[in-house]
């Protein structure tokens, strides 16, 4: 790499590291980081030798992760439409005397560093499950580097296309990714989402090692030769018994592919600079808005609002105006809503497929309702229609003629309502749709009966009370985090922003912690002989925790103005 770019990379890395440690000198980030590290370390210590961890490293799972990572890199890169640089890079490097390949390498350098760190973390976490940890870590690093190269190449390719060509290619790529995943599901997981004639005879070879050698052997020419070769090696003990050389071969192949993909990137004839301007500016703008404390919505779809006439309704007067404002923004941000819906459907699909096989009813009684109950925690980023869209306008909300607690409840109403609607949809699909699915595809679940898809009334009643309580808990916690961050930003605008990942980790742990008292009581009360009242007590406990959270949120909100003035 160019010496000037090396200097720049090292200088920036040095300063970032310094900032990170500076941030950790303050008590709040230090405590947050330490508590997160201790909690995660403790969880790891407890479960490091669990066989379930080993299950995560089975060839089927590994091939699935690899497929998802590769498909994600292709789509993420392409949809970015150009390699995104930081704005200072655009100002100082683009007009500078640097070859295109030097700029690409400079842009990818932090990704390489990330790949190494992620590989080492993987090695530490799964050390007990790995026979050849060093080779496995090196293979993972090489594979991540390939993914970064693929993403960069696709970004450059996407940026070089005209608008119509880009949109056509986008649908083609999405179709290709969906087809690959469906083929993988059919070949490796035996989930027949695709008719058999679409799956060619050679398809299993695409998903090795998810499909084992014996299945590949069952499937002629080249395959017969490879099969005969592997069989002979199996007999001599060169394959299987000694997996070391297989892992080494895998690493060698990945390393060659990583080098090859870099050479390919360096030889691209497309114009990187022009294509990079737009994504660089777009990303800089989202960062700017994030620093102002404003959550960036993808795009306002239209100025028309379904809620225009509803503004006259008495319910939307006073603090209700906040609900109206957030619902209007939500209506105009249909991409976020579509993402939340897609995410909900994606999470519902595995339960949908697993439900007919639920013979003992554990899934219906306990696992699925609990999973849907925690759905809001996963939907938080897709439904930012609360204090997160207010940014610098936050203190001005205090001028509303209503009690802070009322305003706070109004502010979190929109995401709470959307979460509840999506939870209802998920449960409705599982309760109603799974039976229909079973009747349409009886071959898929030969031993399943209609009773396997019916949810107990008690569970549905529990969901009717439990879901709102859980959703309010999650939304209040995330908004509390947001208000505290906004106050910190207002108090010290120049404060280092490092440690943000630790902050998010802390809030994730806190989200789990707010449910701990209710879960603990729900678990302990049956042991003390109070099983019948366990669920109601847990529910009331969570309600009390929610109320405390809302009061805390209201108090924090009351202090926003003085924080902003500071």
């Amino acid at each position, binding site marked *: 790499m160019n*010496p000037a770019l090396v200097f720049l990379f090292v*200088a*920036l890395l040095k300063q970032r590291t310094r900032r990170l440690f500076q941030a950790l000198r303050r008590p709040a980030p230090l405590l947050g980081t330490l508590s997160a590290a201790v909690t995660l370390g403790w969880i790891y210590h407890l479960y490091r030798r669990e066989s379930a961890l080993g299950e995560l490293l089975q060839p089927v799972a590994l091939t699935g992760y690899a497929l998802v990572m590769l498909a994600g890199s292709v789509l993420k890169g392409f949809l970015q439409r150009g390699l995104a640089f930081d704005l*200072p890079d655009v*100002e100082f490097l683009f*007009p500078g*005397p640097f070859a295109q390949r030097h700029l690409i390498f400079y842009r990818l350098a932090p990704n390489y560093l990330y790949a190494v760190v992620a590989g080492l973390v993987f090695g530490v976490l799964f050390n007990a499950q790995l026979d050849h940890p060093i080779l496995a870590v090196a293979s993972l690093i090489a594979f991540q580097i390939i993914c970064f190269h693929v993403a960069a190449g696709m970004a450059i390719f996407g940026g070089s296309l005209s*608008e119509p060509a880009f949109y056509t290619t986008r649908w083609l790529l999405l179709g290709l990714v969906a087809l690959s995943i469906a083929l993988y599901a059919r070949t490796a997981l035996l989930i027949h989402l695709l008719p058999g004639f679409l799956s060619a005879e050679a398809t299993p070879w695409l998903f090795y090692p998810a499909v084992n050698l014996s299945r590949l052997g069952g499937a002629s020419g080249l395959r017969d030769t490879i099969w005969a070769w592997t069989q002979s090696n199996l007999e001599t003990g060169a394959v299987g018994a000694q997996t070391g050389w297989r892992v080494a071969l895998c690493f060698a192949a990945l390393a060659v592919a990583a080098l090859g993909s870099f050479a390919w990137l360096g030889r691209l004839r497309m114009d990187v600079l*022009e294509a990079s*301007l737009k994504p660089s500016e777009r990303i800089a703008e989202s960062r700017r808005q994030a620093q102002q404390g404003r959550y960036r919505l993808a795009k306002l779809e239209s100025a028309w609002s379904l809620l225009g006439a509803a503004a006259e309704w008495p319910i939307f007067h006073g603090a209700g105006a906040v609900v109206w404002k957030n619902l209007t923004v939500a209506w105009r941000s249909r991409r976020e809503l579509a993402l939340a819906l897609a995410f909900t459907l994606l999470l519902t699909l595995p339960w949908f497929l697993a439900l007919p096989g639920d013979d003992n009813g554990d899934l219906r009684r306990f696992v699925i309702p609990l999973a849907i109950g925690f759905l809001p925690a996963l939907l938080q980023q897709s439904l930012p229609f609360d204090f997160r869209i207010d940014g610098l306008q936050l203190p001005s909300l205090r001028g509303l003629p209503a009690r802070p607690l009322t305003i706070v409840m109004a502010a979190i109403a929109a995401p709470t309502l959307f979460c509840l609607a999506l939870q209802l949809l998920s449960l409705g699909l599982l309760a109603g749709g799974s039976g229909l699915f079973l009747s349409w595809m009886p071959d898929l679940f030969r031993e399943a009966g209609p009773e396997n898809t019916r949810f107990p009334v008690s569970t549905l009643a529990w969901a009717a009370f439990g879901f709102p309580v859980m959703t309010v808990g999650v939304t209040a916690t995330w908004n509390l985090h947001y208000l505290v961050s906004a106050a910190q930003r207002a108090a010290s605008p120049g404060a280092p922003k490092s440690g943000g990942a630790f902050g998010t980790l802390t809030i994730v742990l806190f989200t789990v912690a707010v449910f701990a008292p209710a879960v603990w009581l729900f678990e302990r009360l049956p042991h003390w002989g109070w099983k019948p009242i366990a669920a109601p007590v847990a529910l009331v406990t969570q309600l009390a925790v929610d109320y405390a959270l809302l009061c805390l949120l209201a108090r924090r909100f009351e202090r926003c103005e003085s924080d902003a003035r500071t």
Partner: protein
Amino acid sequence: MQTLPIPSPSRGAAAVPAIVVTGFGKDYDDFTAVHGLTFSVDAGEIVGLVGANGAGKTTTLRALAGLLRPSRGAVCIAGHDLAKEPLPAKRALAYLPDTSHPYELLTVREHLQFTALAYGVRDAAARLGPLLEELELSGKTDAIASTLSRGMTQKLALACAFLRQPRAVVLDEPLTGLDPLGIRRIKESIRRRAAEGTAFLLSSHLLELVEAICDRVLIIHRGRLLEYGTLAQIRDRASVTAETSLEDTFFAITERHAQRAAAPPQP
């Protein structure tokens, strides 16, 4: 104040115009931002690029800096075709965007060190002191860029550009965010460097500034070149008096162009 010694360009170098733009045009998907722009900027000349918002000024300046690839035409910097010899062309040109974005975590000194390394400035250490003093950055050498005011950030970008003594400097709204004293200092710096042989092409909405320091003015409107010449030549062609300000001349030219464009075609 200590002054920075700036070598005059060699005679051979001076003979080649610093910037030559021939038939430059830029198309986006369904929109043409610039239509066949042709002009040149000689060594030691200050040319002002004037136009309304969306006229194509920034597109033109970005193409000169090599950030955008021309859809038509050619751009030569110090005799090097930007499309065929991008590296020598880029070495000869410094570009300052309208809003400067320095590396937030680097100090002023580190920005200048990086520039010296990137452009191979051998006597950077000797040049640094006078340059920092000239731009009033002496007391800020170890300040992190994120702590600088907008005006100081602009001065840092200028320092990085001037440190490497380019043949041509392209400035997009160079005086944005500067205080009156800062504006005067920068104007003096530009004039002094132009006198030493550096070519300047600057775009600005401050027409008084353009009138005060530019030798020639380039007026573009909706991506088309309307006028190019000295102020006197432009006033003459616009049929306005010699006392008419550039602002009034600009409005007279653009309004006439708009009327001509709106008029029905002659049978």
